[in-house]
């Protein structure tokens, strides 16, 4: 066995259990963050669409939050909420807000005026209009936002690992401390694989949720553009 090798498969073999645990932790932190972020963003987006003033505040604050370097944010949060999942999730959820709020707003605002008018004129009540029309038509934009938020979060969870909250980041942390490349490669590589895998899942979900975007035969003058995915 060559000690200088980039990756020691032997090590990987012996640490499959730890890798599995880290995968679970990483996935859990990501899913909770994006899930909570989505629910919160949906509420904030609807609030923003309802009141102009709320919109400026929400997007302003979310934008500000987004500019804070992640490591710095987690370091500060640790002093308040300690080394806990809560600390990790506060930061992670915070970073998803800007992308998700903006995409949900843009998606809903992209619903053609004629479609809105028809929905209201046919007697769909506000809740039905939101769920059955606005959110459905905003789905491509919303999923586009979820994809960016998810990939970003998978990356950020690696950072929370560096401050001791499990996931693939702990391998990178240890690898760096011990100058052991195998652990760094495993941690980084698996993060990328997870990001790509979750992204594919979301693409698949979008395809299932938006069948009308697949059928492009005989596309003619609809009179307005269909909302297109942003990313």
């Amino acid at each position, binding site marked *: 066995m060559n000690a200088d090798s980039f990756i020691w498969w032997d090590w990987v073999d012996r640490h499959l259990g730890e890798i599995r645990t880290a995968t679970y932790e990483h996935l859990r932190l990501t899913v909770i963050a994006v899930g909570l972020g989505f629910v919160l963003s949906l509420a904030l987006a609807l609030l923003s669409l309802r009141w102009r003033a709320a919109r400026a505040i929400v997007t302003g604050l979310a934008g500000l939050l987004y500019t804070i370097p992640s490591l710095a944010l987690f370091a500060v949060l640790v002093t308040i909420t300690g080394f806990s999942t809560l600390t990790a999730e506060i930061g992670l959820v915070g970073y998803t807000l800007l992308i998700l709020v903006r995409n949900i707003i843009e998606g809903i605002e992209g619903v053609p005026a004629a479609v809105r008018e028809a929905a209201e004129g046919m007697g769909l009540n506000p809740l039905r209009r939101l769920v059955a029309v606005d959110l459905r038509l905003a789905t491509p934009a919303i999923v586009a936002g979820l994809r960016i938020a998810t990939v970003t979060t998978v990356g950020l969870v690696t950072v929370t690992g560096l401050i001791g909250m499990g996931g693939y980041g702990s391998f990178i942390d240890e690898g760096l401390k011990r100058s052991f490349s195998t652990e760094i490669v495993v941690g980084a590589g698996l993060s990328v694989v997870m990001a790509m895998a979750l992204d594919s899942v979301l693409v698949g979900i979008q395809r299932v949720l938006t069948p009308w975007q697949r059928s492009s035969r005989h596309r003619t003058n609809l*009179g307005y553009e269909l909302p297109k995915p942003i990313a």
Partner: protein
Amino acid sequence: MVPALRLVAVSKRFPGARTDAVADLSLDMPEGTVTALVGPSGCGKTTTLRMINRLVEPTSGSIDLFGTDIRQLDVHELRRRTGYVIQQAGLFPHRTVAANIATVPQLLGWDKQRVRERVDQLVGLVGLDPELLGRYPAELSGGQQQRVGVARALAADPPLLLMDEPYSAVDPIVRAHLQDELLDLQRRVRKTIVLVTHDIDEALKLADQIAVLNIGGVLEQFATPDELLRAPASPFVEQFLGRERALRRLALQPVGTGPIGPVPEVVEGLPTVTTGAPLREALDAIVAWGVEQVVVVGDDGSPVGGLDLLTITERIGNAPSRRDTA
């Protein structure tokens, strides 16, 4: 008889506006008739229409639907009982044609079987190819989309149909075709229809009565197409109607609906028109053939009378003696 729809002194001023969008408008629309609201941009015709299904609430005045003040009805219930067709159809891009048509029946909680039967029936009624039912709106032509829009509006068999510039987004040939289809449809379903259009010719062709509105929602004249062309109530109406009013009146009147002369002694070499053709066609034949009169024939092609220039002129109330004094 109580009119299907009655507007009583309806006014609308939008918040922050310095003038009325609609001013003191009163209109009676009898059941089963087509009423056109026409006028230039800013005349409040669309606002008026939107007040009927309460997308806009009047500032003052009242609107009665079959004798009931619409404010006493649940707003969603009112809209589900009122067909609404808009420019560009406003179909739901994410729902198939069948699902679009089924929107209101589903809201009303009809069972699946009944919805399906109704959709099939409507497809026939508006002349859609049943093949299209599984398609999405983006896959349809503008004319097909507009037919789906009409089918969707008629789905729950509402007594009242509101149409806002329904044909302005389609090309003129398709538009003429859709207008003919609407007339044909109306003969079968007899809805009370309120049609908003900026196209006076569309109004003259489709409507039983026309309300001409001026800027600020001021009613200039409310009359039948023939009356409007014969006696415009103001210079505004006259200008809005445009030229060749007599010819356009002739286009509105079928040969068989008024007095015609006797069958000419010699019918050979004379052009013929059917009783169902408009008077304008008779005039056209006289001018084109350079003859004194045309032969009017029945559906079976046998001569039933004749039409000369004087008779045609009198038919629209313009006797030569009256012309001299005008």
